């Protein structure tokens, strides 16, 4: 299983208390199961399901992808302030 870098933005930072971390993830992830996987470590991430953009290597994640250890996942909820 690959260890990938996960970047947390906005609300995800508050929930995880982290800017980024290395997480052991399954070789194949999809938009649905990646949040399930990460919520095992940070349960409150579950509350953002359907309300955030997940990016894999700087592009939106759609369908499923094969992960490698050099990959980067980013969780990006919208920010409303200004």
């Amino acid at each position, binding site marked *: 299983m690959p260890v990938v870098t996960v*970047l947390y*933005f*906005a*609300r995800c930072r*508050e929930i995880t208390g982290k*800017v980024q971390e290395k997480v052991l993830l399954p070789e194949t992830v999809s938009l649905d199961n990646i949040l399930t996987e990460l919520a095992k470590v940070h349960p*409150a991430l579950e*509350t953002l399901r*359907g*309300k955030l*953009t997940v*990016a894999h290597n*700087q*592009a*939106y994640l*759609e369908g499923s992808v094969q992960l490698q250890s050099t990959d980067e996942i*980013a969780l*990006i*909820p*919208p*920010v*409303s*302030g*200004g």
Partner: protein
Amino acid sequence: MPLSNIDDLFQYEELSACRDAGWPDCFNTGLFVLTPSLETYKALIRRACDDGSFDGGDQGLLNAHFSTWSHGDIRKHIPFSYNVNPNASYTYLPAYKHFADQVKMVHFLGAVKPWHYQYANGRVQGQNLTEHTLKFLEQWHKVADIVKQTYYQPTAEMKAGSAKKEGTNVVPTTLTNPEILRYGRQMIVDGVGLPGQEGLKKSKVLIVGLGALGCPSSHYLAAAGVGTLGLVDDDVVDASNLHRQILHSEKEIGVHKVDSAISRLHAVNQHVSLIPHKVDLNASNALSIIQQYDLVLDCTDNATTRYLINDCCVLLNKVLVSGAALRFEGQVSTYNYKGGPCYRCINPSPPDPETTLNCFEAGVLGPVTGVVGSLQAAEAIKILASDESAYAGKLMLVCPWDGIMKAIKLRPRRKDCVVCGDNPTVTSPIDYVKFCGSGKNKQYSNASTESERITCRQLRDSSYKHLIDVRPSVEFGICALENSVCVPFMDLVSDKVDLSPHIPEDPAEPVYLLCRAGINSQVAVQHLKAKYPEHCFKDIVGGLMGWTSDIDPNFPMY
């Protein structure tokens, strides 16, 4: 400055001039009559090279050349009223008073010129000026204003005239020479050029929100020469805005943000037409405002208005450059650009209002909003000047605090998007407060019943033993009540910390919960009650803001 027709000067012969007030045997060269000739020109050049000028300027040279003027033909002595120096009026004030009506030409002699004086509302500010000098200076400024307006905003006739000018290799343009000079540094950038600057000049941009994002973006757009800026806000400047809302200054606290912005933007570029919209943008007025513009900058601070602006931009086919910032990070994207996604394609369902924080609650760093607002301005300039976008289909993430700047490729337009999709169901503005479950200003429902609450006064008069402040530790570090302990809300509700040291052995001893505005403390009470049902938890109504207003005005608010 001529005050009346001076065509009669054509009757004079070379060399006719007026006496110099300082040395009347010399003529003053502010005004003289001379027949243009190559011969005189060559003779003057020769004299300048051989002998120079006794005063180092034109007057010394011309007086040396036409040296017979003072004792020659008296008909070549033009009356002084054709070359009156108002600065010298103190030397013979009664004459100035007596002949004031006959002055034909005013000569603003000396180093201090009329444009060096402050001029506002028809009045010149200056010390030790005679009544006449003031009058002439004000008249000069009135004329200068008219000239400026005519010069900077040429009429259609003038434009047609300049375009038809024969013998000059000038591309017909809507820009004046002063404009080309003014915007030259951005016009020579590839991608802008003359067409780009003309594009900016004819463009109309709407800026919704004159806060932390609207301030820098409108400043750059006004400075860049965007023809028309619409400015939407319904708030007044508050001291807590000043660390990030850079158009507003201390003297504008309490002033409407639209007024404050207009006065600053007008000072930056008087040629931009600034349209005030002192309203709260809502479903009933948004379409009629947005339809007057070519491009919209979303500089608002809440999700409700963001969905409203997005939907109206899709319905009216306007490009939307959206910016947002919170704490130390920001986001920028361009929506509804040439078939790209809209805000709803990316965020089909609104954020949970309970977890969406605004700048009041979560704070924001000024420079972060500066970066975001600047990116919005750069994107608007690019689109208007070159018809290309940098951020359409992309989400720019900026986090200056952690040194992160990333562009994420966004998904394409959703075919099932409710507003921009193939079968839209949103065909006019909807009820966004209902849709988002929260308005512009959050409405909080009280989670606590009266018996679970205590006022700031009751707290002061009680000898409380257990007071838990649930604000983040950074806020607790700014100010806190005596004998309170800090257990941050997020830690408390996620059970990340061991709460047992804060729970009294005797369940009858009340534990008070305190936060900034009296919201999180209520949620904390409910959470603790579920965990320790035997114990007594109470929240403090109004939080620390209530403490400042009801108990101690010296307790800091932030």
